């Protein structure tokens, strides 16, 4: 009896595999859409328009470096 039951279970498992609980596939269209958006977004550059600083103009003096040496530090 048990033997027969095992055999029956065996064949059932074979057929059941095909109809075992399937995970729902993610909709393909949605996956594609996300990937596309991500790709597009990765290409975008954030433009931060920075105002370019004008420099104070002074005479140029070779004698003491005025207008030439710029480093002032402490």
């Amino acid at each position: 009896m048990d033997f027969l039951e095992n055999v029956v279970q065996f064949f059932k498992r074979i057929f059941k595999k095909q109809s075992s609980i399937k995970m729902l596939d993610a909709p393909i269209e949605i996956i594609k859409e996300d990937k596309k958006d991500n790709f597009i977004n990765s290409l975008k550059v954030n433009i931060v328009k920075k105002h370019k600083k004008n420099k104070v103009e002074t005479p140029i003096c070779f004698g003491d470096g005025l207008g030439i040496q710029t480093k002032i530090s402490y």
Partner: protein
Amino acid sequence: MNALDLKNLLEDAEDKFAIFSDRNTLIKYNCNFAELLSLISDFLTDEQKKALFDLEHFKRFPPSIRAAIIQTINNHEYRAELIENPDVASDFNEYNVIKMVESLDDNAKIRILYNQEFRKKYNMGKNKVRQLIASLSEVNKQEVLRDTEFSQENLENWQIREIIKELKEEKDKLEMLELYDFKDWQIEEILETFTDESKIAIVLENKYGFKNADLISLISSFSIDSLLVFLKDNQEYLEKKGIKPHKITRRLNKEKQEELVSRFEEVDLELNEKRKILVTLRDEVKTSIDTSCMPTEYISAIKMQTSTDMRSYGNIIVDLNGDLEMYSGLDEFVFINAMELLEEDKPKLLKLCEICSEMSIEDNLGLASSTVEEYRSGEDWIKSVLEGINPEWSSIQKVAFIDYSIGKKVSYTPDFDTEVFDVGGARALWKILHSGYGVCNGIAQVEKYILDKVGIEVEIVSSGSHSFLKLKNIQIPTENGDIIQGDTILDPTWNLTAHRYGCKPENFCRSYEEIRKHDIRDDGADVRCHKNDEALASATLDLDEQSLRRIFTSIGVAGKEGNFPIGDLMDKSMMIDAENFPEEESIKRQFSLLAEYCPEFATCQNSTMSILQGVLLNHENLNFNKCVVNRVYAREDEDKRPRMYVYVDFPNAGKKFYIAEKEAFVELSQMEFEAKFECYEMDMEKQDGRRPWEVPNRTQKVEDLTRSSGKIIAEEGDGR
């Protein structure tokens, strides 16, 4: 048949020319050329003699004979005509032609003078032209000279002057002076040939606008008689002109000076001026004077030697070990290079300074001298610096202290590169210390002078555009506490801003490699201020930052952590900016901060400009379309002394002008500013004659970096 027979034939003949013109007749007579010449001379008229040169057999005579025939012609016009005729004279030798021309009368000579082709053919150069003109009569000489175009083309300027000098009448010379554009000294040279009476009148009237040098030259050409009278009668004139009598007498030749000395009692001048005349006599005259009966004041002046060196020509060679009182009143001849004095001679110099308070103190640069007052105050300051040196300090600490002290005392001359810049004054050692202003080679000399006193080996080095120092064989510490020895570079002038404002000095003990990096501007240009491969190849020592801080901390300049005082200013300045005040308010607060931090900000202009550019006006929130810090002068100031100003074109507030007054920056409207102040010519030349606020602002192009320029190869200015 002989010459006598030919003579008889000619005497009997009606047509004497026909005989000469018939060769077959002439050859029958056996006469030599001298005899033939004699017959030609005696029997033919000038026209006939001239016509001989149309005859073939006369044309074939040797050149010397043809020349001799020409010389028998009395009419000089005919002579000139024949000499100029290539068919007649083309084979005459140059020497003979010139002799023939010289023998012509004035009209014929002038004809030849104006025949340029003829003169060229016979190589009659300017010297020959001059000789010919000089041989003309007075009237004809002047005629030629009146043709200024001819004279200037065919004579050198000096030759024209020589001919004018040779004219007999002064009025004619004066006329020529009006025709030619001579320089002052050239006119003076011609006037020297005038009588003393005329010269005196010309000097007093000075219609030629002579400067003193030419007036002195002219006066020194007077006879001694006239000179003695002139000096006596025109003292007020000479004083007004600033002409000292000794400047006249020193130009006299030996003979005139000897005559002057022999009549010295007639010289009606004050004792000091008479001594000056004696001091400045020629050496050969001084040595020949019999001083046995002369007053001692004269003797001491005569015995003084004066320098014949180019640089110190005419200065008295001072004997500091002698009686210094004898130099009293002779200040203008007393020059001492105080840099070459031994320390033990310094008190003697100071004593001499008391006697000759107007004497000049020289230095090694020798471009300008310092006054006694400047020397005294400069030396006092140096003494105070030396007294501030801790004897325990190492050499490098002493160098740091001296460099710092100079930075606190001296500023860069603010009128550099302007039309009022004093080239010599900015380099005279004690003048720099007294005034507080100098330029690089003067400041380098100052620092070397002081470093020499503390035994530091130092050399002044120049790149051509800039001067600084090389410290030699100096010991400096390293990061890990070792001591290394060698050569290194110190630039006292490029350190001025750092020391004035308490910044870290970037030009203190740098290697050649490092300091050359400072020559590269933001735009990449190499200004080569420190380039001198030959002198600086040995400067391999570079003081590391940590050691630099330790050194300046040890001498009391930097704080305990090694930070320099400017940190305080920078922090406060940033805090002002962080408040994000409206632009006008923001800049005014920066200005107030500046005045509080450095009360002398208006007088150390270059350093202040650096700080404004690098710190106070260099902030995130302080925006401007254009900002200029530069110098102007007050229109009412005759000396055109430089005044610092700030011009700003704010995005909102518009154009603002701030002038640095003694205690603060003061705002003026553009109209007020322009009414009161003006830019230096040389500054405006750099901007095509425009003032900085007249130059359009450079527009900033904002680049969109996401868009392709379409270019394959990037060009300058392209953002990538």
